[in-house]
Each structure stands twice: as structure tokens, then as C-alpha cells.
């Protein structure tokens, strides 16, 4: 079933794809956020071959004349949201249960380009994501960059290494069962690489982490787990990003000192106040952070953070530029600057106001959800059309 629907969709949009690739597009709207600190009013951006070619007044008159004009009128255009860590709810397929230590496994091998969840994401503003090994393993493996939305998702580069000190990495039926056991497992592995005892593909990944050529995302929530993760980062020189980090306010000075970053979980109104105020406190302290968790609730998380003191610019950065930077992809994702991928989302108003409706999402210069101005919307996502949800 799932093979046929996307094929049908592909057939419907592919002539359009071909045209989009061939012809420049001049995107116009009342407000275009090129980056949170560069906003164009009545702006225009020229898209060429899936990338941003020119921004604002830099668009040459001759190119403007030849381009196909896409004018979203009074709408807001923002860079596509980047999800720095997700398992898309497929944790079981992204953690090798019997073995706690699998740093050289690649999430890319588990990525299904036909997965229906990926087709849903553009409607929620997400245009790029890091499919990450799940938190069930102490060393889970390597995350993969995925561009969502088109009939067949594009599984791209290998990204960071994931480690986990979270509760579900300590299981009753296989070692380690305790936090000190999990810490020891990692410390001895990194020590082994440092002293040259550790060899093989898993040691190679750890070596990249210690040399700083590969980032390290650590699942950690409570005080003890966060401290343990920061200790490892300090002792082995890791470029540390903490995932979840519900109690990060307790280790704020250490986050600043060690220049660690945070991927937050979904914010919900019923959370502890300290958790709701955390984004604002991280912003004031200068700790890079982005919104994560449930991809469908990214805007809600950002709006709640704003309600609890976060400035709007930081909130938008935490959906776009910061996660792109945490993936070492801020040269191509998370903004609409020249040379960046033409990934953007159109809303009727400010995306941080939840009353603003989604209008369209484009990935690599192609409309993948919503509609062009004055045109019928592209086909419903197949899962919805098939009545799956």
C-alpha cells in the first residue's frame, strides 16, 4: 500500500519538479525571514536549482524578469525548521537491544525513505532532520541527515555520535544496570582509545569524537545524568550536546563553562515551571539550544518558551539556525542566505503565534506541502488520504 500512494503522488508532482529544477523561482512575500537577524519586508528571494541564489536587492533585474514569480502576498516566510534529533517514534529500530555499546552503527541503515511520518513533517514546518539512534543504548551509533517531504526522502550524510546516560539505557536484563556502570563503560572505552588499546570501527568513531571532528549528543535528563555527561565531555574533550536535559537549569554554570549545547524535549503547559523557563534562561546565559521532541509540537514548544520569557528572535533561531549549527550544517540549512538550500515554510503570520496557519512548505526549491499562491493545494499527504490517522 505505502509503495503505491507515494508513487501516485510522485506522478502528480514530477512534471512540476522538473519545471522547478529548470526554471528560477522568484519568491515574494510581505515578510521573508532570511535569518532571525535579517528580515526582509516586502522581500524577494531568487531560488535556483534548489538553492537560494540571491536575496532581496541583490536579485539581478534580468534574473528577476525571467524567473517564475511565486508571490505569497501578506504571508510570512521563514527558513524550514531543523530537527536536531529524532527517532520518528521508531526507537525499537534504532537501538540494538542486547548490546549496550554500538557506536559504529549507522542510523542511515535504518532510515526508510518511504516512511510516512517523513511526508507529514513539512506540514509542521520541518524540512530537515537528524535521524538518531535511540536512547536505549549507552553508545547508540551515528545519526543521519534526512531531508523530508518529497515522495522519497533523501537520506544524507552521517552526523554526530549518540550516547545515552538516560534511564532507559540502564536496563535490568543486560549490563549496565546502573548509572555508574554506564559511565564506566564509556570512560573505559574512551580511555582505551586514548591509550591505543581500543581498535576497530567503534574505536574510530570514539576517536573522531575526542578529536572534535564528530559531535556527541548525549541523552541525559536528571541532575546526576547531566553531571555525568558533562564530566565525560570535560575529561575527553567532546563537543557536547545534551538531549532532553529536563533539569538543565541545575547545571547551567557548567553548560556555560564547557560550551555545551542543549536539545530540549517537547514543552507542554503542564511541565514544571523551571522547565518552561529553561529556554529563556539558556538564552540569557548564552547556551546554544534548540527545540526538539515531538516534531508536530515544535511550534507549540517555541510559543510556550516565548510565553515564559524567551525573546522571539531566539525562539526562531532555536527552530532554525541553532539546530543547523549543532548538525554542523549552518552553511546550508537553517537560513535563506545565498547558497543555502531553498527550504522554507510559509505561514499566514508569525509562526510563533499559534493562530498563524500553515500555508506551504518548500524543500530544495520544490513545493512539498500546502499550496502555491492562487493554486490548489498539492495532494494531501498519502497517510492522511488513506485514512491512516
Amino acid at each position, binding site marked *: 500500500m505505502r509503495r503505491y500512494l507515494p508513487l501516485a503522488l510522485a506522478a502528480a508532482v514530477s512534471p512540476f519538479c522538473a519545471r522547478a529544477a529548470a526554471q528560477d523561482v522568484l519568491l515574494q512575500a510581505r515578510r521573508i525571514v532570511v535569518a532571525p537577524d535579517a528580515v526582509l519586508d516586502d522581500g524577494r528571494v531568487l531560488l535556483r536549482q534548489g538553492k537560494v541564489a540571491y536575496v532581496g536587492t541583490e536579485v539581478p533585474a534580468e534574473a528577476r524578469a525571467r524567473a517564475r514569480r511565486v508571490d505569497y502576498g501578506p504571508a510570512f516566510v521563514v527558513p524550514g525548521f531543523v530537527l536536531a534529533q529524532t527517532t520518528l517514534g521508531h526507537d525499537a529500530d534504532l537501538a540494538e537491544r542486547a548490546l549496550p555499546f554500538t557506536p559504529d552503527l549507522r542510523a542511515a541503515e535504518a532510515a526508510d525513505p518511504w516512511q510516512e511520518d517523513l511526508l507529514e513533517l513539512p506540514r509542521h514546518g520541518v524540512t530537515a532532520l537528524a535521524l538518531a539512534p535511540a536512547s536505549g543504548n549507552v553508545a547508540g551509533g551515528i545519526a543521519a541527515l534526512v531531508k523530508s517531504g518529497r515522495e522519497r526522502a533523501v537520506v544524507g550524510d552521517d552526523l554526530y555520535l549518540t550516547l545515552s546516560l538516560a534511564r532507559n539505557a*540502564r536496563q*535490568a*536484563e*543486560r*549490563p*549496565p*544496570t*546502573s*548509572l*555508574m*556502570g554506564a*559511565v*564506566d563503560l564509556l570512560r*573505559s572505552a574512551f580511555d582505551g582509545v586514548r591509550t591505543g*588499546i581500543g581498535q576497530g570501527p567503534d574505536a574510530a568513531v570514539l576517536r573522531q569524537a575526542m578529536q572534535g571532528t564528530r559531535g556527541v549528543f548525549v541523552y541525559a535528563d*536528571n*541532575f*546526576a545524568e547531566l*553531571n*555525568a555527561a558533562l*564530566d565525560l565531555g570535560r575529561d575527553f574533550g567532546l563537543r557536547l550536546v545534551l538531549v532532553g536535559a529536563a*533539569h538543565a537549569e*541545575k*547545571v547551567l*554554570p*557548567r553548560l*556555560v*563553562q564547557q*560550551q555545551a549545547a542543549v536539545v530540549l524535549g517537547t514543552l507542554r503547559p503542564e511541565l514544571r515551571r523551571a522547565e518552561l523557563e529553561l529556554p529563556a534562561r539558556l538564552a540569557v546565559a548564552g547556551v546554544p539550544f534548540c527545540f526538539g521532541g515531538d516534531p508536530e509540537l515544535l511550534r507549540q514548544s517555541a510559543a510556550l518558551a516565548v510565553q515564559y520569557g524567551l525573546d522571539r528572535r531566539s525562539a526562531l533561531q532555536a527552530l532554525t539556525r541553532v539546530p543547523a549549527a549543532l548538525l554542523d550544517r549552518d552553511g546550508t540549512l537553517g537560513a535563506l542566505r545565498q547558497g543555502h538550500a531553498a527550504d522554507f515554510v510559509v505561514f499566514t503570520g508569525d509562526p510563533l503565534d499559534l493562530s498563524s496557519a500553515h500555508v506551504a512548505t518548500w524543500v530544495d526549491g520544490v513545493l512539498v506541502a500546502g499550496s502555491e499562491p492562487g493554486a490548489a493545494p498539492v495532494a494531501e499527504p498519502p497517510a492522511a488520504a488513506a485514512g491512516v490517522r
Partner: protein
Amino acid sequence: MSRLASVLVPFALGTALAAQTTVFTGARILPGGAPPIADGVLVVTGGRIAAVGDAATPVPDGAAIVDCRGRTITPGLIDASFRGGAAAGDLNEQGDEVTPHLRALDSLDPDDPALARARAAGVTAVHLMPGTRNVIGGLGCVVKTAGTDPAAMLVKADVSLRIVMGSEPSAENRAIRGGRVDSIYYRRPTTRMGVVWETRRAFHEAKQALELSLGATPAPPDRGREVLQRVLRGDLTAYTTARSEQDIRTALRIAAEFGYRTVIDEAQDAWVVADELLAAQVTVLLGAPSAAQVQGSAGRDGADPRYATAKLLADRGIPFVITTGTNTAALELVREAMFAARNGVAPAQAIDAVTIAPARLLGIADRTGSLAAGKDADFVVWSHDPLDPAAVAESVHIDGKPVPASR
């Protein structure tokens, strides 16, 4: 450079604030390991004790004065066998029964409610050991009971290696009996014999490796074995948890067999084996002397605690330290000292058994456990004599800072 500055600035601010001098006057001071001072003066500067003495002790100009008339000041109490400080399950690594290299410090949760309760009751440092579910659990550490960063709370790392006798290390292990053969719990030990066998095997292998390594190419490092070898060489003290008579005898026998130094933790049946304890010159940690029976997972071990044990140890000259230990029926540490005093231990010795005695045993007496110039300002202002049942810790100070009251 900017990173360096951001580290230095708070440090400089901290020094400026901490350099403030506070003087506590008028209290009866029990300095720990020294005679009481009736009308005492305690001078605290920069998180450390600047001076302790009688009413004639000079008070620095500009110091803040705290009137403590009618109160008693003691050193912060030290619990040399503390249950808590980490989330449930995090102090027992069930992957193996012998894990000498695991560090309890790695599981420390500064937010643990047991730490908050302990510091509110006047305990300023605790000896945190791995749990009792492993035969050889791992390395213990001493931490202050207040703080947010384990590295800053740490007083001394790797102070002990916990070994456990009795039924606890075998409690969850099992033969197949229809269960899964691939379970990590399908393993030895399932008996007391098995517990002893595992201990002996671990030390035997460590000793053999030590002997073989003399003059030979070194064996590949094994971190667990290296810890056991530190115990064999006398660089690290074993803390053997042994409650019943047979377990205490076994603990002493294995220590003598391999020639390592051990402390007997819990030691409920110490009154039965006082001669052996004296002969072996071991220090005894007496867990919860107020408890008439052992409660918790070690309850079935058959130990028979007696109220008179503390006095017996004192009379026989067996060095002992009072702790709360693993007994779930334990009271606050100061009340355990009170019970020991009620049952015949001299009051001064009862206080020493929760202050300077554990500090010396754990090797931290240069920093805490008594009130003397130069030591950390860890102390408690009690409403009454601390051995009075009505005594309440009115304020508890760690490194000169009052910890938030939770009463």
C-alpha cells in the same frame, strides 16, 4: 581568553564574598577530639575556620557576630556508611558480581532527598559506597552533603573498596527453574558459599597477577584487578559489610588470608566476636545502634543487634564509628549517637564517633571532623546538647555557608 575570564571573574567574586568574617559567640563548643569549651568563640573566614577558643579569643574588626548563647556547636557530623545519594538501582551494577573499579561518585545525585535530610540533621559529609547487591561493589568516596557539582562536593575520591558478605549479593541470582537461561541473573553466587568463593577468586587472581608481573612484561591492564591490587598492597582500605557473627568471621578470615586491611561495616554481631575484632585490630562501623533488628534487604541475614554493643566496643578498646548504614530503621545520625550514649558510651566518645573518628578513618581529618583553625567551616549550631533528645540542628554550615533549612 574570554573563556578564562569567565572562569576567573566568578572566582574573584566568590573570594570577596567568602572573605567576610563571621564570629559565633557564647556557645558551648565541642571541638571534636578535644575538651569542650564552655563559653566559646568560633571565627569563620572564607569558608574556613580562622580560630576556635574561649571567650578571650579576639574578634576581628568588622566581623558579623552571631550570638549563640545557650546553644552547642559541634563539627558537622560525618556518616561513614550512608545509604542514599543516588537514584534507586544506580549504586548496584547488576551486570557482574565483582565490579571493583566502579565508582559510587559516578551515580551521585546532588538532588537526592536523602542528602537533604542528612544535612538538615547536621550531617555535612557522607561516605558514599556502591550498594550491597554485589560481592565486590566498587569504590567509595566522601562528599559534602550540599552542592551541585559532584567534583566540587567531593572531599576525597577512592577512599574505600566495598565488599559485601551475607545473603544480599546472592539474593536476586537464581538457578534456571524455568526462567530464562540467558538472563544476567542466572549466575553465581546463589549462596553464602558462592559469595565467599567469588571474593576469594577475585583476590586470588589479583594476587597471582601481581606476583607474575614482577620482572615480567606487564599483563594487559584490568581496571578491576588494579583496584584489588591496591587493596593487596595496602594502598586502599576494604570496607567489608558483614552483620552476623559468621559473616564477620568470614570477613576477617579472608582479609587475613590475603593480608589486606579491612573495616567491618554494619557489624551488628560485633558483641559476639569482640575478641576476634580486637585481635585483628580492625575498626568497626556500627550501623544504627538504636535498632533492635536489622530491617531492609539484609534482615534475613540472622544478625542479632544489641543496644549494649557500642559500650562493649568502647570498653574493650575496639575502635568504632557510629553510622546510619543500610538498616532502613536507622534514625538520624545524631540520634544514633544519642542511643549509644544512653546505653553507656561516654558522651564525648559518642560525639567523637560521628565526627572526628570517621574523619580519621576516612582520611579527611585534615579538612573536617573537628573544629580547629585552618579546617573547612563545617559545623552545626544545636538548640540543646546534641545528645539531648530535644536537640535540633538550628543551623548547619558547610564550607562556611549555611545550608537551607528544611525543617
